[in-house]
């Protein structure tokens, strides 16, 4: 198990390093920082001076090490578009995206798993057919269309819910939260549902498929033969064994949630990191793009590590077995 974790850590390290390298190349070769900082009418001497000041005359590995060192301290320079520190911009936007993603993930799990179990246990009934059909549509619909449809129905036609921004937020020492006000919750409903639809449909289908698979196995028959009530068989024995793939997918999808948050935030003008990133792409704001890239990669790597560790907690068999060699 220790060897497995160590190998995972090494892998995570390599991924982070290559992402940092891509971000560094972005800084290095996309646009000229000296030209953008000094403007057109700078003298050659000024340029040389700034080059030296920025460390751009250093050899390549030294510059890269410098970049990684800065990145580790959260220093990604100034946004080309807004002239403010990139890390400050991101920290300001981080709470909005995290709150949105977490609520969406909770909706997807809390609705998706029970519905999946239901669709597996009551196979063939009208309710489960309905759930499967709706989930198929949920998987094929692009996120932004779901958002637009929700806005059309609940904001424009019924006028029940707002469709723009975060509403009233409470500032808790730098962390702005919408959880503490009724208005904040009202603003959260539509974006969170939009973001969760795809994951919900995916989890529902996955849980159903796994559950059907598990219900066919021998130990379920034995559990029934021992006279255990249905509830104990389904939830004590069957569901527990469906959770390993569910955890994998959910973990990987948590990263996808952050990527899809870009779309949701654009549709609902939600002031999160995704909106910041999309504006950075539109205006070719390299420092913001690089910083976002590194941050998302970090979140991904951490999530993947946690998922790997959760396997051991959920599935005791893995603790004895040696991890299988690479494919």
């Amino acid at each position, binding site marked *: 198990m220790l060897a497995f974790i160590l190998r995972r850590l090494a892998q995570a390290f390599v991924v982070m390093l290559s992402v940092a390298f891509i971000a560094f190349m972005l800084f290095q070769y996309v*646009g000229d920082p000296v030209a953008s900082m000094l403007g057109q009418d700078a003298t050659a001497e000024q340029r040389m001076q700034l080059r030296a000041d920025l460390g751009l005359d250093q050899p390549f590995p030294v510059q890269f090490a410098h970049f990684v060192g800065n990145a580790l301290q959260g220093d990604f320079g100034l946004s080309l578009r807004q002239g403010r520190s990139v890390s400050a911009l991101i920290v300001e936007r981080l709470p909005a995206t995290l709150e949105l993603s977490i609520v969406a993930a909770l909706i997807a799990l809390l609705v998706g798993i029970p519905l999946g179990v239901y669709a597996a246990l009551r196979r063939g009934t009208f309710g489960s057919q309905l759930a499967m059909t709706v989930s198929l549509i949920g998987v094929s619909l692009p996120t932004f269309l779901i958002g637009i449809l929700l806005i059309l129905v609940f904001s424009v036609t019924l006028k029940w819910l707002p469709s723009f921004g975060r509403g009233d937020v409470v500032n808790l020492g730098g962390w702005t939260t919408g959880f503490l006000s009724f208005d904040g919750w009202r603003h959260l409903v539509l974006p969170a549902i939009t973001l969760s639809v795809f994951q919900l449909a995916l989890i529902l289908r996955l849980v159903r498929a796994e559950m059907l698979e598990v219900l066919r196995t021998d130990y379920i028959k034995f559990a029934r033969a021992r006279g255990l009530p249905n509830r104990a068989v389904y939830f004590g024995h069957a569901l527990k064994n469906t959770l390993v793939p569910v955890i994998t997918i959910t973990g990987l999808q948590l990263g996808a949630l952050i990527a899809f948050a870009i779309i949701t935030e654009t549709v609902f003008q939600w002031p999160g990191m995704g909106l910041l990133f999309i504006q950075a792409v539109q205006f070719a704001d390299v420092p913001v793009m690089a910083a976002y890239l590194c941050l998302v990669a970090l979140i991904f790597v951490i999530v993947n590590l946690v998922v790997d560790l959760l396997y051991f907690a959920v599935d005791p068999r893995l603790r004895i077995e040696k991890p299988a060699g690479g494919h």
Partner: protein
Amino acid sequence: MNTTAVPAAPGALARFFDGDVWHSFKSSPMAITAAVIAAVCVFCAVFANWVAPHNPFDLAAVNLSDSRLPPAWIEGGSGTYLLGTDDQGRDILSAIMYGARISLFVGVASVLVSMVVGVGLGLLSGFAGGKIDALIMRVCDVMLSFPSLLVALLIDGVGRAIFPNAHDTLAFGVLIVAISLTGWVQYARTVRGSTLVERNREYVQAARVIGVKPSRIMFKHVLPNVMGPVLVLATIHVAAAILTEATLSFLGVGVPPTSPSLGTLIRIGNDFLFSGEWWITIFPGMMLILIALSVNLLGDWLRDALNPRLR
């Protein structure tokens, strides 16, 4: 004329209509429906110049006094504009047909590029083995650990930064490259897997023994035998690529605004949602769903039809 002649060996077309794939197609109502819908969409898109009732980009034909008309069946609508008009008086139905053409073009072009790149690298990886294989597969691993949308956005952003005042054709190029660079990984992995199997087959060894050049073995002998799964992958990938293009265009970083795709139309229409003109955005959205859903269903069917284990 010569009706008594011995029938010649059946041509490729005849063999196809006699084959399993066609038979399985005929017995699947879902596949037929999907194929008809997809064919109609593709036809309208490709021949938009002739099929569309109006030319939405002909400034002389567009009448501003016709702007924001609702669809024909709603009060105030006009029979000339079946699905209504947008804020500049352009016919929505025609705009959708022209838009679908651009969406399809970008989708198919990106799939072709990623197929060529992926199949090439997969062949190389499986055939060469060793360090080249390890390198290509590690790159695949890193690419797979990120959502493709993010990678496409990033490449698109870099493209914009490198060519700040890009010409329209260049913008198309950057977009196609961005979408293809996220898609090639699946092809590479599939082809590598099949190549590893084929590499040790007798016919490859025989070719090697008689001294055929490795590059020729790769393309003439191995390639035709690994293309089956690739075609299935490509079908499903077309739908995914069209959706990615629509998403990027919706986010405002896709095709140039002078040639609006379905995603661009949805983005434009989104601004009019609150003033009640829902048709400007909803109809292009429906078209997008129709195309994606029908192509996806076709791909699913093709996967089952070509899979000998399911027969």
